[in-house]
Protein backbone atom coordinates (compact mmCIF):
# COMPACT_ATOMS: atom_id res chain seq x y z
CA UNK A 1 0.00 0.00 0.00
CA UNK A 2 1.03 3.58 -0.58
CA UNK A 3 2.20 3.60 -4.17
CA UNK A 4 0.98 6.45 -6.31
CA UNK A 5 1.19 6.68 -10.08
CA UNK A 6 0.50 9.81 -12.12
CA UNK A 7 -0.27 9.17 -15.77
CA UNK A 8 -0.19 12.13 -18.18
CA UNK A 9 -1.60 14.33 -15.43
CA UNK A 10 -2.20 17.94 -16.45
CA UNK A 11 -3.92 20.93 -14.93
CA UNK A 12 -5.08 24.20 -16.44
CA UNK A 13 -6.77 27.12 -14.76
CA UNK A 14 -8.79 28.63 -17.59
CA UNK A 15 -6.36 29.15 -20.45
CA UNK A 16 -3.29 28.94 -18.28
CA UNK A 17 -1.66 25.56 -18.26
CA UNK A 18 -0.09 25.23 -14.83
CA UNK A 19 1.00 21.64 -15.19
CA UNK A 20 1.67 20.22 -18.65
CA UNK A 21 1.08 16.46 -18.93
CA UNK A 22 3.53 14.67 -16.67
CA UNK A 23 4.18 11.12 -15.51
CA UNK A 24 5.47 10.20 -12.10
CA UNK A 25 5.89 7.01 -10.14
CA UNK A 26 5.97 7.06 -6.34
CA UNK A 27 6.81 3.77 -4.69
CA UNK A 28 5.47 2.45 -1.44
CA UNK A 29 7.30 3.78 1.62
CA UNK A 30 9.27 6.40 -0.26
CA UNK A 31 9.95 9.90 1.01
CA UNK A 32 9.43 12.01 -2.09
CA UNK A 33 10.12 15.74 -2.09
CA UNK A 34 8.70 18.09 -4.72
CA UNK A 35 11.04 21.03 -4.91
CA UNK A 36 11.15 24.06 -7.14
CA UNK A 37 10.98 27.84 -7.10
CA UNK A 38 7.67 29.42 -6.08
CA UNK A 39 5.04 29.25 -8.78
CA UNK A 40 6.47 26.09 -10.33
CA UNK A 41 3.28 24.12 -9.70
CA UNK A 42 4.52 21.90 -6.91
CA UNK A 43 1.67 22.74 -4.53
CA UNK A 44 -0.85 22.33 -7.34
CA UNK A 45 0.58 18.91 -8.09
CA UNK A 46 0.20 17.94 -4.44
CA UNK A 47 -3.38 19.20 -4.39
CA UNK A 48 -4.12 17.17 -7.50
CA UNK A 49 -2.85 14.07 -5.74
CA UNK A 50 -4.88 14.98 -2.63
CA UNK A 51 -8.01 15.43 -4.71
CA UNK A 52 -8.51 19.06 -3.72
CA UNK A 53 -8.21 20.07 -7.37
CA UNK A 54 -9.72 18.28 -10.36
CA UNK A 55 -7.44 16.99 -13.09
CA UNK A 56 -7.76 18.60 -16.50
CA UNK A 57 -6.64 15.36 -18.10
CA UNK A 58 -4.76 12.21 -17.20
CA UNK A 59 -5.21 9.69 -14.42
CA UNK A 60 -4.05 9.08 -10.87
CA UNK A 61 -3.67 5.59 -9.50
CA UNK A 62 -3.30 4.91 -5.80
CA UNK A 63 -2.29 1.39 -4.83
CA UNK A 64 -2.97 0.22 -8.35
CA UNK A 65 -6.58 1.33 -8.50
CA UNK A 66 -7.82 4.37 -10.36
CA UNK A 67 -8.49 7.31 -8.02
CA UNK A 68 -8.85 10.07 -10.62
CA UNK A 69 -12.43 10.93 -9.70
CA UNK A 70 -12.38 9.80 -6.07
CA UNK A 71 -13.19 12.37 -3.40
CA UNK A 72 -10.30 13.45 -1.14
CA UNK A 73 -11.65 11.39 1.76
CA UNK A 74 -11.88 8.22 -0.33
CA UNK A 75 -8.23 8.33 -1.40
CA UNK A 76 -6.95 7.38 2.02
CA UNK A 77 -4.35 10.15 2.07
CA UNK A 78 -3.69 12.59 4.88
CA UNK A 79 -2.42 16.11 4.39
CA UNK A 80 -0.55 18.56 6.59
CA UNK A 81 -1.15 22.13 5.48
CA UNK A 82 1.19 25.08 5.50
CA UNK A 83 -1.11 27.00 7.88
CA UNK A 84 -1.67 23.74 9.86
CA UNK A 85 -5.44 24.27 9.31
CA UNK A 86 -6.29 23.24 12.87
CA UNK A 87 -9.88 23.71 13.98
CA UNK A 88 -9.58 26.67 16.36
CA UNK A 89 -12.62 26.01 18.53
CA UNK A 90 -11.73 22.38 19.25
CA UNK A 91 -9.23 21.10 21.80
CA UNK A 92 -6.14 19.27 20.59
CA UNK A 93 -7.80 15.96 21.41
CA UNK A 94 -10.90 16.85 19.41
CA UNK A 95 -8.77 18.06 16.52
CA UNK A 96 -6.94 14.77 16.33
CA UNK A 97 -10.18 12.88 16.86
CA UNK A 98 -11.99 14.66 14.04
CA UNK A 99 -11.04 12.36 11.15
CA UNK A 100 -11.76 9.31 13.32
CA UNK A 101 -15.15 10.70 14.31
CA UNK A 102 -15.94 11.38 10.65
CA UNK A 103 -14.99 7.81 9.87
CA UNK A 104 -17.40 6.67 12.58
CA UNK A 105 -14.73 4.94 14.64
CA UNK A 106 -15.54 3.46 18.04
CA UNK A 107 -14.57 6.10 20.69
CA UNK A 108 -12.53 3.65 22.79
CA UNK A 109 -10.38 2.66 19.80
CA UNK A 110 -10.16 6.32 18.76
CA UNK A 111 -8.92 7.34 22.20
CA UNK A 112 -6.30 4.62 22.11
CA UNK A 113 -5.00 5.91 18.79
CA UNK A 114 -5.07 9.53 19.95
CA UNK A 115 -3.06 8.68 23.08
CA UNK A 116 -0.56 6.71 21.05
CA UNK A 117 -0.14 9.55 18.55
CA UNK A 118 0.13 12.11 21.36
CA UNK A 119 2.89 10.05 22.95
CA UNK A 120 4.87 9.82 19.72
CA UNK A 121 4.52 13.55 19.14
CA UNK A 122 5.03 14.71 22.76
CA UNK A 123 1.56 16.19 22.93
CA UNK A 124 0.20 14.27 25.92
CA UNK A 125 0.26 17.31 28.23
CA UNK A 126 -1.50 19.51 25.70
CA UNK A 127 -4.45 17.36 24.70
CA UNK A 128 -6.99 19.59 26.45
CA UNK A 129 -5.66 22.88 25.14
CA UNK A 130 -6.95 24.83 22.19
CA UNK A 131 -4.69 25.39 19.15
CA UNK A 132 -4.57 29.10 19.99
CA UNK A 133 -2.73 28.30 23.23
CA UNK A 134 0.04 26.33 21.50
CA UNK A 135 3.34 27.41 19.98
CA UNK A 136 4.05 27.05 16.27
CA UNK A 137 5.96 23.80 16.65
CA UNK A 138 3.24 22.27 18.83
CA UNK A 139 0.55 23.23 16.34
CA UNK A 140 2.63 21.62 13.64
CA UNK A 141 2.74 18.42 15.69
CA UNK A 142 -1.02 18.50 16.23
CA UNK A 143 -1.49 18.75 12.48
CA UNK A 144 0.81 15.75 12.02
CA UNK A 145 -1.06 13.92 14.79
CA UNK A 146 -4.34 14.51 13.01
CA UNK A 147 -2.77 12.98 9.93
CA UNK A 148 -1.20 9.89 11.51
CA UNK A 149 -4.22 8.65 13.53
CA UNK A 150 -6.01 7.91 10.30
CA UNK A 151 -3.22 5.51 9.33
CA UNK A 152 -3.31 6.78 5.74
CA UNK A 153 -1.59 5.06 2.83
CA UNK A 154 0.42 8.22 2.22
CA UNK A 155 1.10 11.57 3.88
CA UNK A 156 1.10 14.81 1.95
CA UNK A 157 3.00 17.78 3.38
CA UNK A 158 2.51 21.23 1.87
CA UNK A 159 5.47 23.37 2.97
CA UNK A 160 4.81 22.41 6.58
CA UNK A 161 7.89 24.06 8.06
CA UNK A 162 7.83 27.44 6.37
CA UNK A 163 6.03 29.12 9.29
CA UNK A 164 8.57 28.00 11.89
CA UNK A 165 11.76 29.70 13.01
CA UNK A 166 15.09 28.34 11.84
CA UNK A 167 16.01 26.33 14.96
CA UNK A 168 12.58 24.73 15.22
CA UNK A 169 12.62 23.93 11.53
CA UNK A 170 15.77 21.85 11.90
CA UNK A 171 14.18 19.98 14.82
CA UNK A 172 10.88 19.33 13.04
CA UNK A 173 12.82 18.19 9.97
CA UNK A 174 14.47 15.52 12.07
CA UNK A 175 11.18 14.57 13.70
CA UNK A 176 9.45 14.14 10.37
CA UNK A 177 12.36 12.02 9.09
CA UNK A 178 12.17 9.96 12.26
CA UNK A 179 8.44 9.55 11.81
CA UNK A 180 8.97 8.36 8.28
CA UNK A 181 11.42 5.71 9.47
CA UNK A 182 9.06 4.46 12.23
CA UNK A 183 5.87 4.49 10.18
CA UNK A 184 7.49 3.45 6.91
CA UNK A 185 4.61 5.12 5.07
CA UNK A 186 4.86 6.94 1.78
CA UNK A 187 5.37 10.65 2.26
CA UNK A 188 5.14 13.39 -0.33
CA UNK A 189 6.63 16.64 0.80
CA UNK A 190 6.46 19.97 -0.98
CA UNK A 191 9.05 22.64 -0.30
CA UNK A 192 10.89 25.46 -2.00
CA UNK A 193 13.86 24.96 0.27
CA UNK A 194 16.43 22.74 -1.40
CA UNK A 195 18.17 22.10 1.94
CA UNK A 196 15.00 20.46 3.24
CA UNK A 197 14.76 18.49 0.03
CA UNK A 198 18.38 17.30 0.19
CA UNK A 199 18.26 16.31 3.87
CA UNK A 200 14.90 14.54 3.93
CA UNK A 201 14.24 12.95 0.58
CA UNK A 202 14.71 9.43 -0.73
CA UNK A 203 13.72 10.84 -4.08
CA UNK A 204 13.64 14.45 -5.18
CA UNK A 205 11.39 15.69 -7.96
CA UNK A 206 12.65 19.04 -9.28
CA UNK A 207 9.85 21.05 -10.86
CA UNK A 208 10.16 24.14 -13.01
CA UNK A 209 7.17 25.85 -14.68
CA UNK A 210 5.13 22.69 -14.19
CA UNK A 211 7.67 20.46 -15.92
CA UNK A 212 9.58 17.77 -14.10
CA UNK A 213 13.23 18.68 -14.71
CA UNK A 214 14.76 15.68 -13.00
CA UNK A 215 13.87 12.87 -10.62
CA UNK A 216 16.49 11.21 -8.52
CA UNK A 217 18.11 10.70 -5.16
CA UNK A 218 19.66 13.78 -3.52
CA UNK A 219 23.20 12.75 -4.41
CA UNK A 220 22.30 11.89 -8.01
CA UNK A 221 20.91 15.38 -8.45
CA UNK A 222 23.95 16.90 -6.80
CA UNK A 223 26.51 14.90 -8.74
CA UNK A 224 24.89 14.63 -12.14
CA UNK A 225 22.23 17.24 -12.79
CA UNK A 226 20.67 16.85 -16.24
CA UNK A 227 20.57 20.55 -16.99
CA UNK A 228 21.61 23.98 -15.88
CA UNK A 229 18.38 24.62 -13.92
CA UNK A 230 18.77 21.58 -11.69
CA UNK A 231 22.47 22.25 -11.32
CA UNK A 232 21.80 25.79 -10.15
CA UNK A 233 18.85 24.88 -7.94
CA UNK A 234 20.38 22.01 -5.99
CA UNK A 235 23.30 22.79 -3.73
CA UNK A 236 24.03 25.68 -1.44
CA UNK A 237 25.70 28.06 -2.08
CA UNK A 238 24.63 27.99 -5.72
CA UNK A 239 26.75 26.52 -8.49
CA UNK A 240 28.86 29.04 -10.42
CA UNK A 241 28.33 29.23 -14.17
CA UNK A 242 31.13 30.42 -16.41
CA UNK A 243 30.99 30.90 -20.17
CA UNK A 244 33.54 32.16 -22.64
CA UNK A 245 37.13 31.04 -23.04
CA UNK A 246 37.28 28.56 -20.15
CA UNK A 247 34.06 26.93 -21.41
CA UNK A 248 35.33 26.80 -25.02
CA UNK A 249 38.49 25.13 -23.78
CA UNK A 250 36.32 22.31 -22.38
CA UNK A 251 34.14 21.98 -25.54
CA UNK A 252 31.04 23.43 -23.88
CA UNK A 253 28.77 26.47 -24.20
CA UNK A 254 29.10 27.07 -20.50
CA UNK A 255 30.51 25.23 -17.54
CA UNK A 256 29.36 24.98 -13.97
CA UNK A 257 31.49 24.49 -10.91
CA UNK A 258 30.23 24.22 -7.34
CA UNK A 259 31.74 26.63 -4.79
CA UNK A 260 33.20 23.71 -2.83
CA UNK A 261 35.08 22.42 -5.88
CA UNK A 262 37.28 25.44 -6.42
CA UNK A 263 40.87 25.55 -5.32
CA UNK A 264 42.06 28.86 -3.92
CA UNK A 265 45.61 29.95 -4.46
CA UNK A 266 47.54 33.15 -3.74
CA UNK A 267 49.76 33.09 -6.81
CA UNK A 268 48.53 30.89 -9.69
CA UNK A 269 45.27 29.56 -11.11
CA UNK A 270 42.90 29.57 -14.07
CA UNK A 271 40.93 32.65 -12.98
CA UNK A 272 42.13 35.77 -11.31
CA UNK A 273 39.79 37.76 -9.08
CA UNK A 274 39.35 40.26 -6.30
CA UNK A 275 37.83 39.12 -3.00
CA UNK A 276 34.62 40.97 -2.16
CA UNK A 277 32.63 40.08 0.93
CA UNK A 278 33.83 37.04 2.82
CA UNK A 279 31.51 35.25 5.24
CA UNK A 280 33.28 33.43 8.05
CA UNK A 281 31.08 30.66 9.43
CA UNK A 282 33.85 29.02 11.44
CA UNK A 283 33.62 25.66 9.70
CA UNK A 284 33.66 27.24 6.26
CA UNK A 285 34.42 30.56 4.69
CA UNK A 286 32.30 31.78 1.79
CA UNK A 287 34.12 34.16 -0.53
CA UNK A 288 32.42 36.33 -3.11
CA UNK A 289 35.08 36.85 -5.74
CA UNK A 290 34.84 39.29 -8.63
CA UNK A 291 36.64 38.01 -11.70
CA UNK A 292 38.51 40.28 -14.06
CA UNK A 293 35.63 40.06 -16.62
CA UNK A 294 33.21 41.37 -13.98
CA UNK A 295 31.35 38.11 -13.18
CA UNK A 296 30.92 36.96 -9.60
CA UNK A 297 32.05 33.58 -8.31
CA UNK A 298 31.17 32.04 -4.96
CA UNK A 299 33.87 30.03 -3.29
CA UNK A 300 33.52 27.72 -0.34
CA UNK A 301 36.91 27.51 1.33
CA UNK A 302 38.05 26.02 4.60
CA UNK A 303 37.34 27.94 7.79
CA UNK A 304 41.00 28.75 8.37
CA UNK A 305 41.31 30.78 5.18
CA UNK A 306 41.76 34.44 5.91
CA UNK A 307 40.99 36.70 3.00
CA UNK A 308 40.85 40.46 3.19
CA UNK A 309 38.46 42.68 1.24
CA UNK A 310 40.05 43.69 -2.04
CA UNK A 311 42.75 41.02 -1.91
CA UNK A 312 43.79 39.45 -5.22
CA UNK A 313 43.45 35.65 -5.43
CA UNK A 314 43.53 32.90 -8.04
CA UNK A 315 40.90 30.16 -8.48
CA UNK A 316 41.04 26.88 -10.35
CA UNK A 317 38.21 24.37 -10.75
CA UNK A 318 38.80 20.73 -9.82
CA UNK A 319 38.74 19.26 -13.29
CA UNK A 320 36.71 16.11 -12.48
CA UNK A 321 33.96 18.15 -10.79
CA UNK A 322 33.28 20.49 -13.72
CA UNK A 323 29.78 20.25 -15.24
CA UNK A 324 29.56 21.05 -18.93
CA UNK A 325 26.42 22.40 -20.60
CA UNK A 326 25.46 22.94 -24.25
CA UNK A 327 23.72 25.99 -25.69
CA UNK A 328 20.30 24.66 -24.59
CA UNK A 329 21.53 24.33 -21.03
CA UNK A 330 21.56 20.52 -21.12
CA UNK A 331 24.41 18.58 -19.56
CA UNK A 332 26.92 17.18 -22.03
Amino acid at each position, binding site marked *: MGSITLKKVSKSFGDVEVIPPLDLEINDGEFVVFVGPSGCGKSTLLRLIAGLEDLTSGAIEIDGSDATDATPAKRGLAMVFQ*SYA*LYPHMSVRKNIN*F*PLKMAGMDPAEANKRIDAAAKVLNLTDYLDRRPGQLSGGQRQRVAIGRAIVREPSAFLFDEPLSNLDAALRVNMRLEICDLHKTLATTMIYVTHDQVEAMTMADKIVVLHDGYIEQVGSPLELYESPVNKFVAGFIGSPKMNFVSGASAKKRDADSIGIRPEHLTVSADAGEWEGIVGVSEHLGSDTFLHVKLSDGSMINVRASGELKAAYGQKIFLSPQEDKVHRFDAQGLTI
Partner: protein
Amino acid sequence: MATQQSRSAARLMMAPAVILLLGWMLVPLTMTLWFSFRKYLPLRGGDLGWAGFDNYTRFIGSSAFWPSVQATLVIVGGVLIITIVLGIILALLLDQPMWGQGIVRILVIAPFFVMPTVSALVWKNMFMDPVNGLFAYVWKFFGATPVEWLSQASMQSIVMIVSWQWLPFATLILLTAVQSLDSEQLEAAEMDGASFMSRFWYLILPHLARAITIVVLIQTIFLLSIFAEIFVTTGGAFGTKTLSYLIFQRVLESQNVGLGSAGGVYAIILANIVAIFLMRIVGKNLDA
Protein backbone atom coordinates in the same frame (compact mmCIF):
# COMPACT_ATOMS: atom_id res chain seq x y z
CA MET B 1 -1.33 54.31 27.47
CA ALA B 2 1.16 53.38 30.07
CA THR B 3 2.02 56.57 31.86
CA GLN B 4 -0.05 58.55 34.36
CA GLN B 5 0.07 61.52 32.05
CA SER B 6 -1.21 59.75 28.96
CA ARG B 7 -4.00 58.15 31.01
CA SER B 8 -5.31 61.47 32.26
CA ALA B 9 -4.94 62.98 28.81
CA ALA B 10 -7.01 60.13 27.44
CA ARG B 11 -9.71 60.69 30.04
CA LEU B 12 -9.81 64.38 29.26
CA MET B 13 -10.18 63.75 25.55
CA MET B 14 -12.88 61.13 25.98
CA ALA B 15 -14.84 63.35 28.35
CA PRO B 16 -16.83 65.37 25.76
CA ALA B 17 -18.06 62.21 24.03
CA VAL B 18 -18.92 60.50 27.29
CA ILE B 19 -20.74 63.56 28.67
CA LEU B 20 -22.71 64.01 25.43
CA LEU B 21 -23.74 60.35 25.35
CA LEU B 22 -24.67 60.36 29.04
CA GLY B 23 -26.80 63.48 28.55
CA TRP B 24 -28.38 61.98 25.46
CA MET B 25 -29.45 59.00 27.54
CA LEU B 26 -30.12 60.61 30.91
CA VAL B 27 -32.35 63.51 29.85
CA PRO B 28 -35.08 61.44 28.13
CA LEU B 29 -34.81 58.75 30.81
CA THR B 30 -35.32 61.27 33.60
CA MET B 31 -38.20 62.90 31.75
CA THR B 32 -39.89 59.54 31.21
CA LEU B 33 -39.48 58.68 34.87
CA TRP B 34 -40.79 62.11 35.90
CA PHE B 35 -43.91 61.95 33.69
CA SER B 36 -44.61 58.36 34.71
CA PHE B 37 -45.36 59.60 38.23
CA ARG B 38 -47.55 62.54 37.06
CA LYS B 39 -51.14 62.66 36.02
CA TYR B 40 -50.56 64.47 32.72
CA LEU B 41 -53.42 64.72 30.21
CA PRO B 42 -52.46 67.37 27.59
CA LEU B 43 -55.98 67.96 26.19
CA ARG B 44 -57.84 67.42 29.45
CA GLY B 45 -56.31 69.85 31.86
CA GLY B 46 -52.57 69.38 31.36
CA ASP B 47 -50.35 68.49 34.28
CA LEU B 48 -52.64 67.56 37.18
CA GLY B 49 -50.03 66.81 39.84
CA TRP B 50 -48.51 63.67 41.34
CA ALA B 51 -50.10 60.33 40.62
CA GLY B 52 -47.94 58.01 42.70
CA PHE B 53 -47.85 54.51 41.22
CA ASP B 54 -51.33 54.85 39.68
CA ASN B 55 -49.97 54.96 36.12
CA TYR B 56 -47.91 51.82 36.70
CA THR B 57 -50.76 49.78 38.12
CA ARG B 58 -53.16 50.99 35.44
CA PHE B 59 -50.79 50.19 32.59
CA ILE B 60 -49.97 46.71 33.79
CA GLY B 61 -53.60 46.11 34.80
CA SER B 62 -54.87 46.91 31.31
CA SER B 63 -56.14 43.88 29.38
CA ALA B 64 -53.88 44.94 26.48
CA PHE B 65 -50.62 44.74 28.44
CA TRP B 66 -49.70 41.05 28.52
CA PRO B 67 -50.85 40.38 24.93
CA SER B 68 -48.64 43.28 23.82
CA VAL B 69 -45.61 41.83 25.62
CA GLN B 70 -46.33 38.50 23.99
CA ALA B 71 -46.71 40.10 20.54
CA THR B 72 -43.39 41.91 20.99
CA LEU B 73 -41.56 38.73 21.93
CA VAL B 74 -43.17 36.72 19.10
CA ILE B 75 -42.14 39.30 16.53
CA VAL B 76 -38.59 39.59 17.88
CA GLY B 77 -38.19 35.80 18.14
CA GLY B 78 -39.77 35.05 14.79
CA VAL B 79 -37.74 37.62 12.91
CA LEU B 80 -34.50 36.53 14.61
CA ILE B 81 -35.03 32.89 13.67
CA ILE B 82 -36.00 33.63 10.07
CA THR B 83 -33.23 36.17 9.42
CA ILE B 84 -30.51 34.02 10.94
CA VAL B 85 -31.48 30.76 9.26
CA LEU B 86 -32.06 32.36 5.86
CA GLY B 87 -29.10 34.68 6.42
CA ILE B 88 -26.72 31.75 6.90
CA ILE B 89 -28.07 29.99 3.81
CA LEU B 90 -27.84 33.16 1.71
CA ALA B 91 -24.35 33.93 3.02
CA LEU B 92 -23.13 30.46 2.07
CA LEU B 93 -24.70 30.77 -1.39
CA LEU B 94 -23.34 34.27 -2.00
CA ASP B 95 -19.88 33.09 -1.00
CA GLN B 96 -19.84 30.72 -3.98
CA PRO B 97 -18.15 32.17 -7.04
CA MET B 98 -20.77 33.00 -9.66
CA TRP B 99 -21.42 35.22 -12.62
CA GLY B 100 -22.69 38.69 -11.70
CA GLN B 101 -21.61 38.35 -8.09
CA GLY B 102 -21.30 42.08 -7.45
CA ILE B 103 -24.77 42.93 -8.73
CA VAL B 104 -26.38 40.01 -6.89
CA ARG B 105 -24.79 41.11 -3.65
CA ILE B 106 -26.03 44.68 -4.08
CA LEU B 107 -29.54 43.40 -4.83
CA VAL B 108 -29.49 41.25 -1.72
CA ILE B 109 -28.53 44.21 0.41
CA ALA B 110 -31.07 46.55 -1.25
CA PRO B 111 -34.09 45.95 1.08
CA PHE B 112 -32.08 47.36 3.95
CA PHE B 113 -32.03 50.75 2.22
CA VAL B 114 -35.81 50.93 1.89
CA MET B 115 -37.49 52.93 4.66
CA PRO B 116 -39.64 50.79 6.97
CA THR B 117 -42.76 52.81 6.19
CA VAL B 118 -42.24 52.45 2.45
CA SER B 119 -41.53 48.74 2.54
CA ALA B 120 -44.53 48.10 4.78
CA LEU B 121 -46.74 50.02 2.33
CA VAL B 122 -45.32 48.14 -0.64
CA TRP B 123 -45.95 44.81 1.07
CA LYS B 124 -49.43 45.82 2.18
CA ASN B 125 -50.65 47.15 -1.15
CA MET B 126 -48.65 45.28 -3.77
CA PHE B 127 -48.24 41.84 -2.22
CA MET B 128 -50.77 41.27 0.52
CA ASP B 129 -53.82 43.09 -0.76
CA PRO B 130 -56.55 40.45 -1.01
CA VAL B 131 -57.94 41.95 -4.24
CA ASN B 132 -55.03 43.49 -6.16
CA GLY B 133 -52.04 42.00 -4.40
CA LEU B 134 -49.52 39.74 -6.11
CA PHE B 135 -50.17 36.95 -3.63
CA ALA B 136 -53.91 37.17 -4.36
CA TYR B 137 -53.16 36.61 -8.05
CA VAL B 138 -51.01 33.61 -7.28
CA TRP B 139 -53.72 32.13 -5.05
CA LYS B 140 -56.39 32.77 -7.68
CA PHE B 141 -54.18 31.30 -10.40
CA PHE B 142 -54.15 28.01 -8.49
CA GLY B 143 -57.90 28.30 -7.85
CA ALA B 144 -57.57 29.08 -4.15
CA THR B 145 -59.33 31.81 -2.24
CA PRO B 146 -56.91 34.71 -1.62
CA VAL B 147 -55.75 35.05 1.95
CA GLU B 148 -56.59 38.28 3.71
CA TRP B 149 -53.06 38.47 5.00
CA LEU B 150 -53.21 41.38 7.39
CA SER B 151 -56.36 40.26 9.17
CA GLN B 152 -56.25 36.46 8.89
CA ALA B 153 -52.52 35.99 9.33
CA SER B 154 -51.61 39.37 10.74
CA MET B 155 -48.72 38.29 12.97
CA GLN B 156 -47.13 36.12 10.28
CA SER B 157 -47.46 38.99 7.79
CA ILE B 158 -45.68 41.44 10.04
CA VAL B 159 -42.96 38.95 10.87
CA MET B 160 -42.55 38.39 7.12
CA ILE B 161 -42.29 42.10 6.32
CA VAL B 162 -39.82 42.80 9.11
CA SER B 163 -37.76 39.71 8.25
CA TRP B 164 -37.53 40.90 4.66
CA GLN B 165 -36.14 44.20 5.93
CA TRP B 166 -33.61 42.69 8.28
CA LEU B 167 -32.47 39.72 6.22
CA PRO B 168 -29.91 41.83 4.29
CA PHE B 169 -28.30 42.98 7.52
CA ALA B 170 -27.96 39.42 8.81
CA THR B 171 -26.75 38.18 5.42
CA LEU B 172 -24.15 40.91 5.16
CA ILE B 173 -22.64 40.30 8.60
CA LEU B 174 -22.72 36.52 8.16
CA LEU B 175 -21.25 36.76 4.66
CA THR B 176 -18.20 38.63 5.90
CA ALA B 177 -17.81 36.00 8.61
CA VAL B 178 -18.10 33.15 6.10
CA GLN B 179 -15.49 34.83 3.91
CA SER B 180 -13.06 35.08 6.80
CA LEU B 181 -13.07 31.30 7.31
CA ASP B 182 -9.69 29.84 6.35
CA SER B 183 -10.22 27.75 3.23
CA GLU B 184 -7.42 25.39 4.26
CA GLN B 185 -9.51 24.41 7.30
CA LEU B 186 -12.35 23.39 5.03
CA GLU B 187 -9.96 21.48 2.79
CA ALA B 188 -8.43 19.76 5.80
CA ALA B 189 -11.92 18.74 6.94
CA GLU B 190 -12.65 17.50 3.44
CA MET B 191 -9.53 15.34 3.54
CA ASP B 192 -10.57 14.16 7.01
CA GLY B 193 -13.69 12.75 5.41
CA ALA B 194 -16.23 15.33 6.58
CA SER B 195 -19.36 15.63 4.45
CA PHE B 196 -20.76 19.06 3.66
CA MET B 197 -23.19 18.81 6.56
CA SER B 198 -20.46 17.88 9.06
CA ARG B 199 -18.23 20.64 7.73
CA PHE B 200 -21.13 23.05 8.22
CA TRP B 201 -21.89 21.76 11.70
CA TYR B 202 -18.36 21.37 13.07
CA LEU B 203 -16.52 24.17 11.26
CA ILE B 204 -18.70 26.81 9.64
CA LEU B 205 -21.29 27.17 12.38
CA PRO B 206 -18.76 27.51 15.25
CA HIS B 207 -16.86 30.00 13.11
CA LEU B 208 -20.08 32.00 12.62
CA ALA B 209 -20.96 31.96 16.33
CA ARG B 210 -19.60 35.41 17.01
CA ALA B 211 -21.24 36.96 13.95
CA ILE B 212 -24.56 35.34 14.87
CA THR B 213 -24.25 36.80 18.35
CA ILE B 214 -23.74 40.25 16.95
CA VAL B 215 -26.70 39.89 14.60
CA VAL B 216 -28.92 38.67 17.46
CA LEU B 217 -27.93 41.50 19.80
CA ILE B 218 -28.21 44.32 17.28
CA GLN B 219 -31.44 43.09 15.74
CA THR B 220 -33.05 42.58 19.13
CA ILE B 221 -32.37 46.18 20.06
CA PHE B 222 -34.09 47.43 16.92
CA LEU B 223 -36.86 44.84 16.77
CA LEU B 224 -38.06 45.58 20.31
CA SER B 225 -39.06 49.02 19.11
CA ILE B 226 -40.50 48.39 15.63
CA PHE B 227 -43.37 50.70 15.03
CA ALA B 228 -43.77 51.94 11.45
CA GLU B 229 -44.54 48.48 10.03
CA ILE B 230 -47.42 47.99 12.47
CA PHE B 231 -48.70 51.53 12.16
CA VAL B 232 -48.84 51.31 8.36
CA THR B 233 -50.28 47.80 8.06
CA THR B 234 -52.63 46.72 10.84
CA GLY B 235 -52.64 49.77 13.05
CA GLY B 236 -52.20 47.52 16.03
CA ALA B 237 -55.32 45.48 15.29
CA PHE B 238 -55.59 41.68 14.97
CA GLY B 239 -53.25 40.93 17.85
CA THR B 240 -50.26 42.80 16.46
CA LYS B 241 -50.15 45.44 19.17
CA THR B 242 -46.59 45.45 20.53
CA LEU B 243 -45.51 47.16 23.70
CA SER B 244 -44.13 50.16 21.85
CA TYR B 245 -47.37 50.42 19.86
CA LEU B 246 -49.40 50.26 23.08
CA ILE B 247 -47.33 53.10 24.51
CA PHE B 248 -47.93 55.12 21.35
CA GLN B 249 -51.67 54.57 21.70
CA ARG B 250 -51.69 55.58 25.36
CA VAL B 251 -49.73 58.77 24.75
CA LEU B 252 -51.19 59.99 21.45
CA GLU B 253 -54.54 58.34 20.97
CA SER B 254 -55.61 58.47 24.65
CA GLN B 255 -53.63 61.65 25.23
CA ASN B 256 -52.29 60.27 28.52
CA VAL B 257 -48.59 61.09 28.77
CA GLY B 258 -48.28 59.79 32.35
CA LEU B 259 -49.69 56.37 31.50
CA GLY B 260 -47.56 56.11 28.38
CA SER B 261 -44.43 57.03 30.29
CA ALA B 262 -45.13 54.28 32.81
CA GLY B 263 -45.39 51.93 29.81
CA GLY B 264 -42.07 53.28 28.63
CA VAL B 265 -40.48 52.32 31.93
CA TYR B 266 -41.94 48.81 31.54
CA ALA B 267 -40.48 48.68 28.02
CA ILE B 268 -37.05 49.53 29.43
CA ILE B 269 -37.43 46.73 31.98
CA LEU B 270 -38.54 44.26 29.30
CA ALA B 271 -35.63 45.23 27.06
CA ASN B 272 -33.23 44.67 29.95
CA ILE B 273 -34.70 41.27 30.78
CA VAL B 274 -34.35 40.24 27.11
CA ALA B 275 -30.83 41.64 27.02
CA ILE B 276 -29.79 39.71 30.16
CA PHE B 277 -31.21 36.49 28.71
CA LEU B 278 -29.43 37.06 25.42
CA MET B 279 -26.12 37.84 27.08
CA ARG B 280 -26.46 34.69 29.15
CA ILE B 281 -27.16 32.56 26.08
CA VAL B 282 -24.92 34.04 23.44
CA GLY B 283 -22.74 36.58 25.23
CA LYS B 284 -19.92 34.13 25.96
CA ASN B 285 -19.30 33.96 22.21
CA LEU B 286 -17.99 37.51 22.36
CA ASP B 287 -15.14 36.59 24.72
CA ALA B 288 -11.70 35.63 23.53
